[in-house]
């Protein structure tokens, strides 16, 4: 495995370029990049910017697959540039293009504003009616591990937009909410601490909501964090249909664990050691 670590081979990066002030449409520029084993596409783009063309523009931040900034179309698949090793997907030629289904702002930078507008419309936060408790909390909300598991997978979303780029419905219908907003809406509706399920259903049950998903599954295949938005959307459809047919199970609201000294102690947890400071 390590015998190839110093071997350098040339991979041609076919990068989509676009300057709105100069170009009427994007064009492809080819850059020869010396690639070593283990080098990511993000490192390749840095090489281009440092040595070949400093005008190349793209978004990146964490370089470790947690911020969701560097989503782009690599050899026809939407994925993160920092997470993808060049030699895993290409031997001699690699096409790098901005995420489809979004407007291109410049070079490899997509305009994600539409995705975030739809996301905000679906209330991606815990909503509760008990204002007094929210402003002056008396304790924590108690959630069992089973209740957590119902939405935890969908909370790993990094909002990179790869699922939106892969979705066939978004390719023609730009008003469709899309996998990310729908999944995040379901993540909060499935959270036992939340109280805005009905409000979100009004957004996701519309003509451009969950029912425009036809389970092509490309969003789940493209997702770099294993969020599986396709699964979330099907569970969301189930929620919507059962609610319409009045067959939905009434969920118990989240129990409140009141402040220190007020809750019942779990006998399995041992006592704290005796105080040694300020005695």
């Amino acid at each position, binding site marked *: 495995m390590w015998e190839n670590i110093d071997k350098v081979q040339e991979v041609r990066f076919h990068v989509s370029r676009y300057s709105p002030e100069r170009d009427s449409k994007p064009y492809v520029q080819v850059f020869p990049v010396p690639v070593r084993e283990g080098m990511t596409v993000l490192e390749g783009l840095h090489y281009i910017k440092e040595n070949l063309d400093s005008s190349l523009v793209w978004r990146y931040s964490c370089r470790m697959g947690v911020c969701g900034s560097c989503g782009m179309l690599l050899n*026809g*698949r939407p994925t993160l540039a920092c997470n993808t090793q060049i030699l895993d997907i290409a*031997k*001699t*030629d690699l096409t790098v293009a901005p995420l489809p289904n979004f407007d291109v702002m410049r070079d490899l930078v997509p305009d994600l504003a539409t995705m975030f507008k739809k996301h905000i419309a679906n209330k991606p936060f815990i909503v509760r009616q008990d204002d007094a408790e929210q402003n002056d909390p008396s304790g924590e909300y108690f959630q069992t591990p089973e209740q957590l*598991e*119902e*939405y*935890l*997978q*969908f909370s*790993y979303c990094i909002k990179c937009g790869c699922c939106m780029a892969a979705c*066939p419905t978004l390719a023609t219908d730009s008003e469709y909410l899309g996998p990310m907003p729908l999944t995040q809406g379901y993540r909060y509706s*499935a959270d036992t601490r939340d109280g805005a399920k009905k409000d979100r259903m009004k957004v996701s049950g519309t003509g451009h909501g969950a029912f425009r998903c*036809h*389970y*092509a*599954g*490309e969003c*789940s*295949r493209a*997702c770099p*964090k*294993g*969020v*599986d938005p*396709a*699964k*979330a959307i*099907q*569970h969301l*459809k*189930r929620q919507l*249909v059962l609610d319409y047919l009045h067959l939905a199970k009434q969920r118990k609201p989240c129990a409140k664990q009141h402040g220190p000294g007020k809750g019942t102690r779990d006998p399995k947890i041992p006592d704290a050691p005796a105080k040694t400071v300020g005695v």
Partner: protein
Amino acid sequence: MAELKRHDNRLGVWGWLGGGRWGIERYAYILHRLTGLGILFYFLLHIVVTSLRAMQIYLWTEGGFFHQPVFKVGEYLVFSAFAYHAFNGVRLILVELGLAVGKPFEPVYPYKTSLSVQRPLFIVMMILAAAFLAAGTIEFLGFVE
């Protein structure tokens, strides 16, 4: 200078099928739409043609306009489209009601998605569709011969 070795990176016929980049479920969705449109187009004409029997006009029987072999083949194609559309539709009903996609769980790399959970159902449905199609093909070929 010696000739450099070249790697043949062409996808061949696999390139026609989206280069293998798309999952089978995406192709299933496209085919579901195409078969649906085909069946609908046939169906709208079918309502008109068969309702004419109330006026004793039988356009599809012996001597009728639609009794020609090309229409019989077309009908068989509609039957095949129904075989696929119906069984894939059963899969979609189960999937879209959240019954065949599995429960959410904490994702651990390498990630397993709901696509792999419903894949056995997809295969079973396609086998059933093939069996249904085979039964209809036997009769169709019997007629043609």
